Each structure stands twice: as C-alpha cells, then as structure tokens.
C-alpha cells in the first residue's frame, strides 16, 4: 500500500468526522479487507469493523444471484446503525447512534470515498468556444 493512499484515507476520514456529527466511527478498507484508515483509536477495533463491513456486503450479496451487486447497506438496531458503502476498489463502514438521517449519512460516506480517490469525480469537459462560424 502506498503511503499517499493512507494519507488520502486519513484525510478523507478527518473530513468525514468534521462534517458529519452523526457518524461515531468509520473505517476505510480495501477489497481484501485491509484497513486503510480509521477514526477508531485502536487497530483491533478498526479491523473488527472492517471485517464486519466486508462480511455484511458479502452476505447481503448472496441474497440475489442475478443482476448487480450490493452497493450499500444499512443495518439498524436499537443500539445504533451500521452503514457500509462499496466503491470501485475501496469500501467504507461506519457506525452511528440510533435513528440516524440515513440519506445524509450515505451521502457523507460516498463523499468520503470520493475524497479518498476511489471514485474521482468525472473531469469537467472544457467548454468549447464557439467558432466565428457558429456565432
């Protein structure tokens, strides 16, 4: 793993916790389950959250054999919710308290994945200047 990748992840998670007060903990991990960055203090908990996030995506994917795979999920319990979002090569798992604003949390997690350079936004096409003939 490149050092710049880790830095991207750390920065993305720092931005995430700054903008979202609902997210209590979050971890960025890759397809293999390796932790790229976490808001949690200890590595063991970060790995446990990443493992659980990967397992949730995998198990949910088994519910439907045809069509597209799982892109995101929310598991809600009285103690809190777990969110997992799948990017192209990275995933993010996060926990919140009970009854979070689901749409907002998903939006923030997807933004975090984008900042972590997983899904860079499509570059803006430069505007073509009208030629003298068109004008």
């Amino acid at each position, binding site marked *: 793993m490149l050092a710049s990748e880790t830095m991207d992840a750390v920065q993305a998670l720092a931005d995430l916790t700054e903008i979202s007060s609902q997210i209590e*903990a979050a971890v960025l991990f890759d397809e293999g389950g390796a932790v790229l960055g976490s808001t949690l203090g200890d590595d063991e*908990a970060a790995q446990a959250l990443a493992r*659980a996030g990967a397992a949730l995506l995998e*198990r949910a994917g088994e519910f*439907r054999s045809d069509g597209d795979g*799982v892109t995101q999920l929310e598991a*809600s319990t009285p*103690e809190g919710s777990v969110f997992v979002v799948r990017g192209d090569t990275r995933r993010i798992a996060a926990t919140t308290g009970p009854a979070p604003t689901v749409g907002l949390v998903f939006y923030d997690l997807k933004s975090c994945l984008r900042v972590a350079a997983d899904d860079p936004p499509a570059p803006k096409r430069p505007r073509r200047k009208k030629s003298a003939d068109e004008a």
Partner: protein
Amino acid sequence: MKRKLLGLFGFGTGIFAGSVVYRRSFARRRDRVDVYFGDGSMVSFAEGSTEADKLIPVAREALAAAHRSQRRT
C-alpha cells in the same frame, strides 16, 4: 358549565398528547436491514426474516467493536 367543558377538553388533549410522546419515546425499535443494489433497487429485511438474522449479528459485532474502542479512548 362552559369552563367545565373546556377543562375536560384540555384534560383529554393532555392525555392524548402524553400517550403519543410516551409511545414515541419508549416504543421498541426493531432491527432492520436495508440493502441497496447496483440497479437502483432496495430491499428491506425486517427483524425475524432469514436475511436479517444473517446480517444483524454481524452489525452488532461492528457496533460492539466501535463502542468498546470509544470507551477506551
């Protein structure tokens, strides 16, 4: 008479409002899993379904790990 009716109406309204607040505060939240697929569809699995029973224990593990870590810091 009018005052009595007004008092009765106020009492009834208070009881109703109180019961709504009580139910909202103490009603047990049920476990639920919402899964979103690449084709834009979403399926919600309620507590007690086979699918939710497969996912909820994993979610509880994730919450427990996060809470344990937060308590330590």
